[in-house]
């Protein structure tokens, strides 16, 4: 079978090329294929003109569309990230709180034991923000005097190499009645022991400085009691949904992480005091 002879009738060759693709415009006649222009509205020229007009009107709105799409995408991804990162903290249940009997035994409390406001802190000795908060906590105790007590809970983060060992050292010191002295030394010297490979030696030297029985301290650091205390605090923190340190609770209610600024904490304590005085 031979290919049909194609004759093209048109004013411009580009239009014909396009017309050849339009099946309704083809007519076979005696073995030849005639391509017929069916009207001015179907020419490439007119199509291109319409397309170019459409492009021009689109071009006018395109930057607005692009900017709006990017703004929405940024806002949407930010909102999704915020939802994913925002900690969902629970309140401390009554039986685990510092007023509960079972919890109070292993708790480290500073300030007036009968204070109307309790600030409970889950902290990591190797965490710089916890170190900063420790200094601020002392200011708070002076400011609020008998109206505030501070409870310390261990929450060593797995990303901090010596955090658990430091928590055990503090608990071992606590078994000799010197928890807060070790707490203060650990935070004061945080920048030193955090960077060295063998922090244990430094912890022992701190124990000597604050007058602990060193043999007993060494035994207690490796002992069951210190480990149980650290683990029970950590388990409580896990059950409350804690992921970051320091995490604060005022009268068993979590403080919003973004309110961990001095102004935010003071405002939360003032609100708790006002609520207590109204009750």
């Amino acid at each position, binding site marked *: 079978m031979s290919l049909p002879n194609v004759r093209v009738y048109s004013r411009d060759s580009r239009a014909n090329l396009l017309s050849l693709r339009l099946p309704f415009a083809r007519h076979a006649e005696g073995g030849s294929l005639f391509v017929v222009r069916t009207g001015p509205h179907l020419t490439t020229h007119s199509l291109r003109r319409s397309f170019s007009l459409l492009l021009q009107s689109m071009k006018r709105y395109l930057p607005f569309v692009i900017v709006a799409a990017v703004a929405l995408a940024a806002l949407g*991804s930010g909102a999704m990230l915020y939802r994913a990162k925002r900690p969902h903290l629970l309140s401390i249940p009554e039986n685990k709180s510092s007023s509960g009997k079972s919890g109070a035994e292993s708790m480290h409390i500073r300030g007036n034991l009968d204070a109307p406001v309790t600030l409970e802190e889950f902290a990591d000795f190797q965490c710089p923000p916890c170190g900063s908060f420790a200094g601020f906590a002392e200011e708070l105790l002076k400011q609020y005097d008998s109206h505030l007590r501070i409870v310390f809970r261990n929450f060593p983060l797995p990303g901090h190499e010596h955090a658990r060992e430091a928590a055990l050292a503090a608990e071992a010191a606590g078994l000799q009645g010197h928890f807060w002295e070790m707490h203060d030394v650990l935070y004061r010297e945080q920048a030193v022991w955090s960077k060295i490979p063998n922090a244990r030696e430094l912890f022992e030297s701190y124990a000597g400085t604050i007058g602990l029985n060193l043999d007993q301290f060494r035994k207690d650091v490796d002992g069951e009691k210190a480990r149980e205390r650290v683990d029970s605090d950590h388990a409580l923190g896990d059950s409350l949904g804690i992921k970051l340190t320091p995490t604060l609770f005022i009268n068993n209610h979590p403080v919003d992480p973004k309110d961990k600024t001095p102004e935010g904490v003071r405002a939360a304590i003032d609100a708790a005091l006002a609520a207590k005085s109204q009750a």
Partner: protein
Amino acid sequence: MTVSRFRTIFYTVAAIVALAGLADATYLSVQALTGETLSCGGSPDCFRVLGSSYARVAGIPVAVLGALAYLSVFAFATFAAFGYTRARTLLIFLVGAMFLATLWFLYVQAFVLHAYCRYCLFSAAITFLLAGLVIAVPSSQKQ
């Protein structure tokens, strides 16, 4: 290639670079709003910088202002690429202001806080790149 074509390419590149800055600032804004910058467990290296008083202006996290600035740079660069001349002028002023702010924040990190946050350094690099692009764009007189 014509000067106009060159300009379009420059502004398109500036818009893409601004997107990287927007992503960085959005991430830092989320960190500031969730309180992660005041904690360990997120990015502890940045705590000293992002948890400092310099990281907020009138209570608003600087990262949020940065995200708005990068979004504006993206918008102006996009409009400039489409031939809006006023957008070019606004882009120059905005990038200039961001450049000065970046110099201030680098000074604070280096000489006041003695700590560097890698996200802030990335943002500084983006701003310097944007400033370079804005300076390098061929002027309209050359066309």
